[in-house]
């Protein structure tokens, strides 16, 4: 059972909402209702960029109650692997795309007494749906949102007008930083913190919470990074005996798909664990780029998440 059933959507609206960030509104190709979803969910968007097939995960940022359309925001990453560049340059109003069903790997904790959201840049998107959902439930939450400048930060005005003093925006161009220690120190027991943004920010927030004695269960993070590029290598499939070349800008999963090999996957961001594959042998170092395997598992080198990770050597043999 690999992957996620796809549905065709049409782009109904494209808006430049900040420097290098565009918002896309997607509707079903026949205008049928889309699935409801829960705050924190993402979808994967399938992109046929020339001869390349890519699927990137994007958080759903619209209201979960709105089944007429889904909204995503895409940052044009520099240097891009191709996905965000394709979305920015080739996808227009009326373009057709394929998307997977919503999947939630970043849900708000339903038993939390309060929710503290810490966002950096494009990391704001999952929190927009979560806040919409929690607001309807009259739940207690606050947002701490770090942006480079008001031109770079999307939705600052919208969020402030909708949620008022629950939204705190910090502008790097004014030297403002999220005062995370103060924010976390002042919270009641039973508060949960969620962080989404660039990797250094996530690491900093998790570390700060840990040092302040926050329990691991109350701290949540999500980061969808594209599979990092590297040098080409060869994947040997033990069961079929095939050998497949993974190019420098491809993930193992993408190379398998390009060659018609059906491998399991879901989130394609190294978070869900679905594409975990047994490593039978590897002649060098595995570069684990996922957030799923534990550190001891990564060190052991017996498993690899093929959506994100690659190797720094010539070949790896997988149980596929």
């Amino acid at each position, binding site marked *: 059972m690999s992957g996620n*059933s796809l549905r065709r959507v049409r782009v109904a609206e494209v808006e430049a909402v900040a420097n290098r960030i565009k918002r896309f509104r997607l509707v079903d190709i026949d205008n049928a209702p889309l699935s*409801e*979803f829960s705050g924190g*969910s993402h979808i994967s968007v399938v992109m046929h960029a020339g001869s390349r097939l890519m699927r990137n995960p994007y958080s759903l940022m619209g209201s979960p109650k709105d089944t007429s359309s889904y909204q995503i925001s895409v940052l044009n990453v520099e240097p891009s692997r191709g996905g965000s560049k394709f979305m920015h340059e080739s996808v227009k109003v009326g373009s057709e795309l394929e998307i997977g069903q919503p999947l939630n790997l970043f849900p708000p904790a339903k038993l939390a007494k309060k929710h503290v959201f810490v966002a950096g840049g494009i990391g704001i998107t999952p929190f927009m749906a979560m806040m919409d959902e929690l607001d309807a439930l009259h739940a207690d939450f606050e947002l701490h949102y770090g942006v480079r400048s008001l031109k770079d930060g999307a939705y600052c005005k919208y969020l402030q007008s909708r949620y008022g003093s629950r939204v705190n925006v910090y502008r790097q161009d004014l030297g403002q930083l999220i005062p995370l220690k103060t924010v976390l120190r002042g919270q009641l027991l039973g508060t949960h913190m969620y962080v989404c943004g660039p990797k250094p920010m996530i690491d900093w927030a998790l570390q700060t919470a840990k040092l302040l004695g926050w329990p691991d269960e109350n701290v949540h993070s999500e980061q969808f990074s594209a599979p990092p590029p590297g040098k080409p290598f060869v994947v040997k499939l033990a069961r079929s005996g095939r050998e497949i070349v993974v190019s420098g800008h491809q993930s193992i999963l993408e190379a398998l798909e390009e060659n018609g090999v059906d491998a399991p996957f*879901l989130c394609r961001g190294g978070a869900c664990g679905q594409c975990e594959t047994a490593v039978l042998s590897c002649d060098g170092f595995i570069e684990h780029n996922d957030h799923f395997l534990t550190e001891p598992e990564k060190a052991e080198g017996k498993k690899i998440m093929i959506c994100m990770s690659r190797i720094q050597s010539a070949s790896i043999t997988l149980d596929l």
Partner: protein
Amino acid sequence: MGLTFRDETFRDDFTYANSPENIRRFPFPFIEDQYRYSVNIEPHTPGPKGSPFEFPFDIDEHYVSEMRDRALVLEADPLRCQALPHMMTAQWDMLELIMTSLARDYPEHFTLNRDGSQWHWINRPLGIDQKFTFLDAGTLPFEPMEYIGRQVQGDFSIQDQRDNQLWMDAGIITSQADWSLDFDVGMNFFEWHGPVPLAHEAGVFERALKFLLNLQIGKPVRRLNWTMTINPRLDTSPENYHKWGTDRTTVTPENAGKKVHLRVEMQGLFRLPRSNAILFSIRGYLMSLEQIVTVPKWGRRLPRVLRSLPQELVDYKGLTRYRETAIAYLSKYDDGAPTSPGGGPD
């Protein structure tokens, strides 16, 4: 084609029985003569027409009488239906999934009209005509899970998903094979499966949990589970053990065909979209041994399977006292001929 609903009882005089047509659609769970422990999860996709797998929620000739028995259980013991406060969104998810499924799959029996949040539900077999506001629990006579749970066959639990675990935080359980919602509510996946023998050692629950945490919207899965019950009793709960436990001592070679029932559970697992919770449906089917042996393949296979059961499972399923008697009864119908693969009748 409408169903004809039987008027029957699951207690006292036990008038429950399957019609000849219903016997052949029984989800006989044994696909080979040897018992094997497996998670046996498969996609809950539409099965053959007329089979219990045709629709997500199977309604059959026992519907009206089963709902009457559920109402009796809930009246005597309201704790069979419980939902923790954070499960209200999931309750609505469940109500929506079941109402839309039943109205689509059994239009002659159920109708749902939706105008925004104003919903109109008609359940003809039970004589219910209800207008209500979706997501406003005050407009229904019960909370949403109990409201719809009283109108659909099978037990249901709802699992919240948090901390990479599933938590049984709601359920309506009135026809269970000796487990208690009141005891299990609030437990996690490993805790409520604690009593199951053999599977923990095999790592079954770690794998199953990991699979379920990634269960997708619109891609439900199912599996079959089974046990045996003396008399066609739905409510074999720990709370009422004093009423049914001693039934196990009443099985004789003369009455085994009538008294001993194979109890099959078709278990469905559905991702609920608004709440990210998982709905677990436990749709039970009961059939007496004397009805089972009317299908020659099942008459041959069931005694073979029962002989091959590991002792731990015999004890866990509560068959210890009457397994031999049941095997002796069934063996009269096993001529030793080979059986075809799969569970269905030939």
